[in-house]
């Protein structure tokens, strides 16, 4: 695996202006992500995970520090970087396939190619037959899968995902995770994925970054040395449990005893 950094963040700080002196969300965050790494970001709710992703996507300029993608300082959204938003963020007036096709439409891809590619992705995310359905008629999980397809249709090098499986049930979630791993390994993508599910992070990632409470710092940068391809059973091994325990401790989840 090639580990020249595709993305590097140095000393990222973000402060949102508000009436009482500003809300300090990110605090001097630095890390590098190698090409084709699968990185998960964990952290307590409201710690700034979405904010970090928005900064990495070039949607939000950091108050301090800089992001480099393939060695180039980021000044705005980049080609080759696709974002999956925390809510599915679909256009309600566009059908499933029209939503998936939007990025191609903006790039001026001709209608025939666009239809073919969106067709493939609809199948991939398991929504075959729902092409002409409007977002209002989709379940939360289906809508999120459309959002994932809309990101994948751009064939990005770097995929930024903000809790993409947040509203999926456990089974579909695992399935989608498996699909994502397949896409990731076959198509040489780099993935940065925010999740709140520790087991999911250990199962999917090469590496997990744990953010602290606001203002968020990186409290743990853990390499998950579990060989790939990972089988379902890997979830029940002691080493898997040990990684999960370390992550839980870093997040600061209090012990609950009954």
């Amino acid at each position, binding site marked *: 695996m090639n580990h020249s950094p595709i993305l590097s963040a140095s000393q990222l700080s973000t402060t949102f202006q508000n009436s009482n002196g500003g809300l300090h969300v990110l605090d001097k965050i630095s890390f590098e992500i190698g090409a084709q790494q699968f990185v998960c970001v964990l952290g307590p709710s409201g710690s700034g995970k979405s904010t970090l992703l928005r900064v990495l*996507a070039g949607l939000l300029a950091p108050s301090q520090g800089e992001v480099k993608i393939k060695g180039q300082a980021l000044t705005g959204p980049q080609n080759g*970087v696709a974002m999956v938003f925390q809510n599915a963020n679909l256009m*309600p*007036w566009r059908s499933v396939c029209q939503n998936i096709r*939007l*990025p191609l439409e*903006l790039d001026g891809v001709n209608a025939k190619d666009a239809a073919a590619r969106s067709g493939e992705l609809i199948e991939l995310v398991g929504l075959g037959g729902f092409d002409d359905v*409007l977002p209002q008629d989709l379940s939360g999980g289906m809508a999120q899968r459309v959002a994932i397809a809309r990101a994948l249709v751009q064939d990005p090098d770097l995929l930024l995902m903000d809790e993409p499986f947040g509203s999926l049930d456990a089974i579909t979630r695992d399935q989608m995770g498996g699909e994502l791993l397949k896409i990731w390994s076959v198509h040489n993508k780099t993935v940065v994925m925010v999740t709140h599910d520790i087991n999911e992070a250990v199962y999917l990632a090469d590496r997990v970054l744990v953010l602290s409470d606001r203002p968020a710092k990186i409290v743990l940068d853990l390499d998950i040395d579990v060989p790939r391809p990972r089988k379902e059973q890997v979830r029940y091994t002691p080493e898997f449990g040990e990684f999960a325990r370390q992550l839980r401790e870093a997040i600061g989840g209090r012990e609950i005893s009954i």
Partner: protein
Amino acid sequence: MSVPLSRSYGSDFLLTMATIAQNTSSLLYSLRQRGVALLPFTLALFIFLWYSLVWAGDLRAFILPTPDLVLSRFVEAAGDGSLLRHTMVTLSEVLGGLVLGVSVATLLGYLLAKSQTLERLLSPYIVASQSIPTVAIAPLLVIWFGPGLTSKVLICALIVFFPILINTIVGVRAVPADLHDLMRSLKATRWQTFWLLEVPAALPVFLGGLRIGATLAVIGAVVGEFVGADRGLGFLINVGRGEYDTALVFVAVFTLMFMAMGLYGLVVLLEWRLLGWQRRESQETINY
């Protein structure tokens, strides 16, 4: 003890009101469902009541003409082409005013929605101008632009302006920030963001404004014609009143009514065509 008692009365009251509101809205809904089928009956009832009023009150024709008198007056006015002539005059004033008012208001509304500075700069003037009743400036416009088409078009445009402006601003402002982020992350051009995001997202609210505007425009034209004109349906009403030809007044009033209903219907048709995607959820809730 009296405090909790009154409090429970309070919540009971609210509950009752809520139930009434709910029942009323479902009643209205089922009435609308059946409304079309019932139309001949309600129309017959309306005409019957009209006749009874004339007979019971022993009203003379210049106070309240009977429906058949109005009908024969209609046939007469339609037959000699005068009704059509006056209708076309008013209709062109209305349409001219709509085109002018809607385009200026939409353009300005979009700019105001996009620029806080511009809004802060202009909104005091817009609100102030809106507190002047259009009826009050209509005479001025007739003095300045003469009794012809121009002054009426301007009056219509003025009256249409405000609801369109407000609805454009509200519609454009309400475009979800997340969708703007999406378009930015996809490196959409301004033009693409305008056509593929802002227009479709703002359309429902904008068309709501257009519904109001379409009917207001008819009022604007009549106001203008009352103030000074030698043609148009408003003028016809004035003539009818002056000559105690009350049936003619009724003919003109009904024609205006149908014109306004027609325009409203066109907007509803437009909504039906353009907003198919939200037909299911909001047809019953957003209703001006």
